[in-house]
C-alpha cells in the first residue's frame, strides 16, 4: 500500500529492502527484514512501531548505513548509502543525526565536549565548534550545564545533550532509536515536545522507532507497523488509529486508545446469549463524527438504553478520537438496527458478545 498523500520525491525511500543475517556456527539464518517499502517525505515525522525483535533497530540503521541491506535499496536524498565507496558513507552519515535509548554519551566528556564530538570528527576548527555548540546548548535548555559530565545529569538532560550532539553537524535527518524508552513519562513528554519543536523550527525530518504507541500518538505524522521483519500496515497516524486493519496494529492502537477491552469485561463476556443478557459493542468514534452526540441520538431514535461500560476520548494527530465499550439490549432485531445506525456514520461498531 503506497499512500497517496506523498510528495513526488521522498527524502528517504526503502525499495524492496531485505536484511538477512547469515547462519553462524550454532544459529540458523535470521531474516531481520523482508521486502520493506517505506517512504519518508521531507520534513515529516515518521514512526516505526514494533515489538522487540521485529526488526526496528535494523531498519533504522539501514538509513545511516550502520547496516547494509541484503537486497533492495535505501535511498537518502537520492543517494544509495550502501553503494558508496570506503570513506564516503562517513561523510553521508554526517548529514544524518542519531539519538539513542541509552544516550551513548562519553562519560569522559562534559556536555559541551560531547556535543562537540561530531564536529571534531568532521574536522571543524575550535572557534567554529564553540560557535556551533553554544547555541545548541541553549536550544536544548542546558546552557547552565555546559561543563557538567553525563554522570551529573538526569536522564532527560542526557537525552537533551544527545539531541544537541545529533544536531551539531546540521543534519537533514534525525534518527531516534527508542530515545524515550529509558525515561519516565513526564520526561518523555518533554523530550517529545522538544523533538516536535526541532522538527518545526529546523525543518528536520525525523524517523523514530519505538515499541510504545503513546510515543507514536504524540510524535508521528505517519506510522509503519513492523512485525517479524515486515511492514504489516502503514499510513498517517490518524488513519492508523482510526482504522487499524492488522491484528498487531489493533493491539498497539488499543493499548493507548482504550480499544482493548478491560480484563473485568473480558472475564464476564460470553459468546452465547442467555435470557436477560445485554449485548456488548465496541464503538470507535472517528473523523467528523467523533464530536457528534451519537449515543444520545441512538437512544432517542431507537428508544433503547445505552450503558457505557468503559471508554476513552482523546485527540490524535489533532483530531478527536473516541473508543467506547457499551452494552445495549440483546434482542437480535434491535441489535442489528443499533449497529447499522452506528456504522451509518464513519464510526466502527463491533459486536463482542453478551454479559448478564
Amino acid at each position: 500500500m503506497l499512500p497517496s498523500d506523498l510528495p513526488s520525491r521522498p527524502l528517504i525511500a526503502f525499495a524492496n529492502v531485505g536484511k538477512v543475517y547469515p547462519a553462524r556456527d550454532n544459529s540458523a539464518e535470521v531474516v531481520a527484514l523482508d521486502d520493506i517499502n517505506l517512504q519518508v517525505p521531507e520534513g515529516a515525522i515518521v514512526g516505526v512501531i514494533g515489538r522487540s525483535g521485529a526488526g526496528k533497530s535494523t531498519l533504522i540503521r539501514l538509513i545511516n548505513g550502520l547496516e547494509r541491506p541484503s537486497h533492495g535499496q535505501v535511498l537518502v536524498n537520492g543517494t544509495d548509502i550502501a553503494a558508496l565507496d570506503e570513506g564516503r558513507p562517513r561523510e553521508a552519515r554526517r548529514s544524518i543525526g542519531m539519538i539513542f535509548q541509552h544516550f551513548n554519551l562519553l562519560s569522559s566528556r562534559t556536555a559541551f565536549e560531547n556535543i562537540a564530538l561530531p564536529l571534531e570528527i568532521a574536522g571543524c576548527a575550535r572557534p567554529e565548534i564553540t560557535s556551533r555548540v553554544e547555541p545548541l546548548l541553549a536550544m536544548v535548555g542546558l546552557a547552565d550545564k555546559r561543563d557538567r559530565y553525563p554522570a551529573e545529569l538526569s536522564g532527560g538532560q542526557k537525552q537533551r545533550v544527545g539531541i544537541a550532539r545529533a544536531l551539531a553537524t546540521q543534519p537533514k535527518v534525525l534518527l531516534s532509536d527508542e530515545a524515550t524508552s529509558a525515561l519516565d513519562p513526564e520526561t518523555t513528554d518533554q523530550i517529545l515536545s522538544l523533538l516536535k519543536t526541532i522538527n518545526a523550527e529546523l525543518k528536520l525530518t525525523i524517523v523514530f522507532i519505538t515499541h510504545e504507541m503513546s510515543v507514536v500518538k504524540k510524535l508521528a505524522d505517519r506510522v509503519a507497523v513492523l512485525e517479524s521483519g515486515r511492514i504489516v500496515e502503514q499510513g498517517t497516524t490518524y488513519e492508523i488509529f482510526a482504522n487499524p486493519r492488522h491484528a498487531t496494529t489493533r493491539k498497539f492502537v488499543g493499548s493507548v486508545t482504550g480499544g482493548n477491552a478491560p480484563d473485568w469485561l473480558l472475564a464476564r463476556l460470553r459468546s452465547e446469549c442467555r435470557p436477560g443478557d445485554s449485548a456488548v459493542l465496541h464503538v470507535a468514534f472517528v473523523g467528523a463524527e467523533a464530536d457528534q452526540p451519537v449515543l444520545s441520538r441512538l437512544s432517542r431514535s431507537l428508544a433503547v438504553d445505552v450503558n457505557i461500560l468503559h471508554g476513552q476520548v482523546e485527540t490524535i494527530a489533532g483530531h478527536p478520537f473516541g473508543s467506547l465499550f457499551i452494552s445495549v439490549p440483546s434482542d437480535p432485531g434491535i441489535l442489528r438496527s443499533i449497529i447499522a445506525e452506528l456504522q451509518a456514520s464513519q464510526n466502527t461498531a463491533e459486536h463482542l458478545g453478551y454479559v448478564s
Partner: protein
Amino acid sequence: MSPELLQLIAWSTVDTLVMVGLSGLFGTLVGLPLGIFLATSRSNELFPAPATNRILGLVVNATRSTPFIILVVAIVPLTRFIAGTSIGTRAAVVPLTIAAIPFIARVVEAAIREVDQGLVEAARAFGASPLQIVQKVLLPEAMPAVTLALTLTIVSLLGFSAMVGAVGGGGLGDLGIRYGYQRFMPEVMATVVLVLIVLVQGVQTLGEAIARRLDKRTRNS
C-alpha cells in the same frame, strides 16, 4: 647499619626505580598499541584482522606463561644485541620490558573491551573513522581502567625486578639476596622489604589517585 650499607640501599633503590621506570615506559610504548590492536582486530571489529589477532594473542600468551627467571636467561642473546651487554642494570631492562609488553597488552585490551559498544556505534553514526574512534572514544573512555592497569604492571615489575639479580641486574632484590640472604644480614633484608613495601604503596596510591581524577562516571569526582 653502617653508612656504606645505607648508601648501598639508596643506590639499589635508584637502580630498581630506573629498571622499573624504563621497562614500564618501553613496555607501555609497545604494549599499549598492541593492547588496542588486540581489542579491535577480531572479525567485525574496527580493524578486522582475525588471523593476525590470533597469532599475536598466541605470542602474548606464550610470553606470559614463560616464568620470568627462564625468560631472563632465554633471551640473553637478544639482551646482548639490544643493550650491548647481558649483565647489569641496563641489561635487565630488556627482559623486564619483554615481560611487561604482553602483560600491558592484555590489561589494556580488557580495559578497552569494557567500553560500552553503544559509544562506538554512536561515533560510527557521526561518521567517525576507526582511528578517530580509538583516539576520541575508546582511549579516553578506557583511561581510568588503563591507569589502574599500568599501576598493576608497575607493581608487578617491582616484583620481577627482584629476580634480575640473577643476571647481575642490581637493584633492591639483588641486594636482599646477596647481603640479606647469602651474608645473613637480616637488617638489610628487612630494610629492603620495607623499601619495597613503601614503593608499592606509593605507586598504588598514586595510580589510584590519577585513575580517580580521570574517572567522570560517578558524581562528585
